[in-house]
């Protein structure tokens, strides 16, 4: 890519634009936190940020390292508990949640537990953490993923976090909250949504300079392609400048 922004900057800006003002977003460490903070500073000043360890509505001075770190309660409206944060999600107060993973499938199911068999793993990953809860309980989840043929997998080694399970109505039939589920997937190549009936992943926009063909070839499963796929708006100078202020030490966003 010859553009004057990095992949992480593109992911952060694209994710932040999915967020809406006057909504509640559950954020984790890294890019999700940055996307949330960027949205608040650019177009969603009245969006409430909640951290799973209990930080509610902080005015974050510098990027927290952990979702339980004291930066998550800096000038917050409440320093609460995991029970409160997770109950907010289960009872319908959380509009957006962020997820990521080592593998994703065509229905937006995610693996963050193991590569290889569970009993005898090739690579042991951290496990669910709060991901299963976010993916199960938030109204809409935003999935940020590095895309290649292995990560966009035909079959997951382990379903840690539910997307639309086996597609169609299977998510609701399993008992997960009605109307909830993956909303957008954002990779370094493109953004995706889910076709409403089959719940299969569908191309939503391609990032500047990326061919549709490249997106499709960088996946282990078939991605639905509607007619006339638009190009993702590139990051603006205002957004890029703001990202430098949000992450001044360069935890996720490279220093310019």
């Amino acid at each position: 890519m010859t553009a004057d922004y990095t992949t992480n900057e593109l992911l952060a800006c694209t994710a932040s634009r999915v967020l809406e003002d006057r909504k509640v977003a559950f954020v984790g460490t890294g890019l999700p936190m940055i996307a949330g903070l960027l949205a608040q500073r650019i177009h969603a000043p009245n969006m409430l940020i909640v951290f799973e360890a209990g930080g509610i509505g902080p005015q974050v001075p510098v990027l927290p390292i952990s979702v339980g770190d004291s930066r998550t309660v800096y000038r917050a409206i409440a320093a609460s508990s995991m029970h409160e944060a997770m109950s907010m999600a289960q009872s319908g107060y959380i509009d957006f949640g962020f997820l990521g993973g080592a593998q994703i499938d065509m229905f937006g199911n995610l693996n963050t537990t193991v590569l290889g068999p569970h009993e005898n793993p090739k690579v042991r990953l951290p496990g669910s953490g709060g991901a299963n809860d976010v993916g199960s309980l938030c109204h809409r989840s935003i999935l940020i993923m590095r895309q290649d043929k292995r990560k966009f997998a035909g079959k997951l080694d382990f379903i840690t976090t539910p997307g639309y399970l086996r597609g169609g109505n299977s998510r609701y039939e399993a008992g997960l909250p009605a109307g909830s589920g993956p909303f957008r997937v954002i990779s370094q190549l493109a953004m995706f949504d889910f076709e409403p009936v089959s719940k299969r992943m569908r191309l939503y926009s391609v990032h500047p300079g990326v061919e549709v063909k490249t997106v499709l070839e960088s996946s282990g499963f078939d991605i639905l392609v509607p007619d006339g796929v638009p190009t993702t708006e590139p990051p603006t100078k205002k957004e890029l400048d703001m990202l430098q202020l949000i992450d001044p030490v360069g935890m996720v966003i490279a220093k310019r």
Partner: protein
Amino acid sequence: MILQEGKGELVGWHDPDENRKWVEANKPRDMTKKITTAQEAVAKFVPDGCYLAMGGFGHVRVSMVMIYEMIRQRRKNIIMAGKTAVHDIDLLIGGSCVDRVEVAYAFAHELRGLSPGGRRAVEEGRVKVVAEISNAGYQWRFLAAQMGLPFIPTRAMLGTDTLEKSSAKVIKDPFSGKPICLLPAAYPDVAVIHVPRCDEFGNCQIDGTLVEDFELARAARRLIISAEEIISNDKIREKPWLTKIPYFLVDAVVEQKYGSHPCQMPMEYFFDEEHIGEWLALSKSDEGTRQYMDKYVFGTKDFDDYIRVIGGEAKMRELADVEHLRRPMTAPWLKNKGGE
């Protein structure tokens, strides 16, 4: 009717009547002084093979004083609650104290990356993951225990392998008719929670988020508190609304200033990223892990001695400055970030 049964090991469950009886017979009802040392608290309340849960979250407000002491006393075969267990479990695995884990989140250090030591132990089969669960799931297991119930329902985990490898069960909810996941209560044999201040009886105040320590304190059979500072009972009674853990839940109180280092103590001192970085680098090999343990755990006689080794008051003042935003953070792992 049971629709699905998780195949994970059922860790730390007791019949509610059996646990009531245990509480009746064993928990202190009178306000007695519980001040003791880290050495005695581990010797008395952390036996080999116990089911252990640590308070705090990741690298935040973790009782490292008790972790180092468990390693120093060479505890074995501990089953650990991986309820976002990060630095604590990494060191206990490095010290060969833990051989089984129920995992919500473990073997990684959030933004800092995956844990070389913990991962290697699981991949080589030295540590066995006996069950999977989610963070909310673990915390609600403690809530069920706090409430004295056999289980608590949740709408999370349904339809996934996380549930399939957990100890939860799915039934048809008799009210809504929809499938619902039942999480079994979890009563850790012992929990260790680090707090900013408490009195000599164990009445504790906590600054910042509680994470799941409110529920965990009430679920655990034995509870060890380590505190930055011991305050008078009068101070506790001045603002009783600040008491998050009352004395009758507490079995031992250990006073240890800086007892969470190298983890963060909210509003007091920041993560010691240099030290965490040193551990992450050394724990890539068994030899490095031994080197770390020899220098910081077996090479120090107690936690005050350890604090001297890591740089003493001067170092802790520096970390207090970062915590209070008077000084920017630095971290060895930062140079690998932000690229691309």
